[in-house]
């Protein structure tokens, strides 16, 4: 399929052919979570598409208003549940902007390291599930094998595979253990080889090419109008990446390229994400090489818990600890919007502080929520099979869409 079927309804040969409305319901093997699509079909061609969301709405933003700043971190992790480190970074970065706290260099590099590992993790989950949707079922097992290696690294450093609450306001909660660096380096060296193997399976597979080349094309201008960001925008030819645009964490010191596509079809999106995995592995290696010595969390006891060894000797530390754990730190009134580059696009966090120990409003600008608006443009006037391919390549995570 090298051309899209772009026959507008008014010019279709048999204009009063029957339109059938099909509900691709919240429970469907291909909808990547609980997304409901109400699709008007004419034969096999999609004429109108209405996504209905909200089936996993958890009220996280409202719950956050009830908790002290520190306790919000596990909540916001669980929004976009595949890229949890990014949510932690967006929130902690926003609060650090609010209280004007500088994080030490080691923490910056550690955060960058874990963010890039999470990016590889997110893209692996995407690749496994999307290939599963398109029929390349064995890709799921290969991708999850690598994913388990990343989760082993997370477990080694943070104690838990998913939802690790590793980033804290001021840095990270614990330093990396002995042996982590060797294991991580081995993984980062192995990753490009594995990606090469995935590409050998899919890149020139005739079925995969026919399903993805030329399907789901949306022009760059239309994507910009719709506020789409991330690999979808880069696949359409726009080299917009927040890691290069705004300097945050240790990205200015890293040497990496951002892959940019040309046509903006599903095949370009696939290639862009796969290339991003290789670039992320390079960033991981560079972080390990350049990891500076020093404290892993800021020193300001008003906002950061003191180390436990001090609690038995210093009265002040005990008082700080007590205040931080029971009430939490207070933040002067103000508001800040801080955004980072998530595997799906621009993840922004808006925090409004009103002077108390609890945030007055925490809002996340989730990339999947905004990117989903482009789905209609991708799928209308194409076959329903192309719609499934586009949905896979769009990479929505419904936890982030519904929050």
């Amino acid at each position, binding site marked *: 399929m090298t051309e899209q079927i772009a026959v507008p309804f008014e010019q279709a040969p048999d204009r009063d052919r029957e339109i059938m409305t099909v509900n691709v319901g919240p429970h469907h093997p291909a909808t990547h979570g609980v997304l409901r699509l109400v699709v008007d079909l004419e034969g096999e061609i999609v004429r109108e598409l209405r996504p209905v969301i909200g089936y996993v709405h958890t009220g996280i933003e*409202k719950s956050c*208003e*009830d908790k002290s700043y520190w306790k919000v971190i596990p909540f916001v992790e669980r929004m976009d549940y595949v890229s949890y480190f990014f949510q932690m970074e967006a929130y902690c970065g926003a609060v650090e902007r609010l209280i004007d706290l500088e994080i030490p260099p080691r923490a910056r590099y550690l955060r960058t390291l874990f963010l890039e590992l999470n990016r590889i993790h997110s893209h692996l989950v995407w690749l496994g599930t999307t290939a599963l949707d398109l029929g390349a079922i064995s890709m799921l097992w290969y991708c999850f094998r690598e994913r388990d290696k990343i989760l082993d690294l997370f477990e080694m450093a943070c104690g838990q595979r998913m939802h690790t609450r590793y980033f804290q306001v001021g840095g990270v909660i614990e330093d990396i253990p002995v042996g982590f660096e060797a294991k991580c380096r081995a993984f980062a060296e192995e990753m490009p080889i594995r990606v090469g193997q995935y590409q050998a399976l899919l890149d020139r597979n005739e079925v995969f090419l026919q399903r993805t080349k030329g399907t789901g094309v949306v022009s760059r201008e239309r994507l910009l*109008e719709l506020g789409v960001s991330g690999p979808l925008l880069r696949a359409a030819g726009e080299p917009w990446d927040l890691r290069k*645009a705004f300097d945050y964490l240790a990205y200015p010191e890293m040497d990496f390229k951002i892959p940019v596509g040309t046509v903006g079809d599903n095949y370009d999106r696939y290639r862009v994400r796969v290339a991003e995995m290789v670039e992320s592995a390079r960033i991981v290696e560079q972080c390990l090489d350049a990891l500076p010595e020093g404290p892993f969390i800021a020193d300001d006891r008003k906002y950061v818990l003191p180390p436990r060894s001090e609690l038995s000797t210093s009265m002040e530390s005990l008082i700080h600890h007590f205040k931080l754990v029971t009430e939490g730190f207070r933040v002067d009134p*103000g508001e800040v919007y801080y955004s980072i580059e998530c595997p799906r696009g621009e993840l*922004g966090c808006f925090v409004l502080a009103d002077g108390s120990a609890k945030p007055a409003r925490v809002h996340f600008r989730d990339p999947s*929520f*905004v990117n989903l*608006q482009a789905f209609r443009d991708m799928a209308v006037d194409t076959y329903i099979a192309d719609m499934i391919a586009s949905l896979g390549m769009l990479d929505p995570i419904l936890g982030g869409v519904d929050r």
Partner: protein
Amino acid sequence: MPDAPGLELIRGEIERDCPDAVLATSFDRAQAALIVDPEKVVAVLGWLKDQPGQRYDFLSSLHAADYLPNEPRFAVHYELINRDRVERIRVKAMLAEPGGEELPEIDSCVDLFPTAEAQEREVFDFFGIVFRGHPNLTRILMPDDYVGWPQRRDFPVGGEPVTFTYSEQRFD
């Protein structure tokens, strides 16, 4: 990010084209914000988007906040980005609560920024702010027949009290 003098210059230029639109400016924690009269917010957004020197043509986020107990109570925030100069600017429109059963209203900017469609629906769903001119202003995340505006500060968080075996007299 336009710095503080740059922000004042932008305000001055907007004054020439849309008089009395910008009520105040705020440069807090290295973030530039224009506080705008809600009736003229679409004009200001259009100016920022189309003016040759400004070109803030990417609406990164549209969200709202409830400043209870301060008045005016609601604020709709528009985060704009200029991708060529890599600068952000925020436009804030403060809305007061009309009182009684009425809902606060503001013009929709869907014609300028099509990305605002879903985001304005979300603001309507959570705060009850009506966007005039929106093609399909219905609830997006809550069920369609839900009553109440969940994200307002006076809406309770909800949930139910946890029961323990030793402390409850009955269990169903």
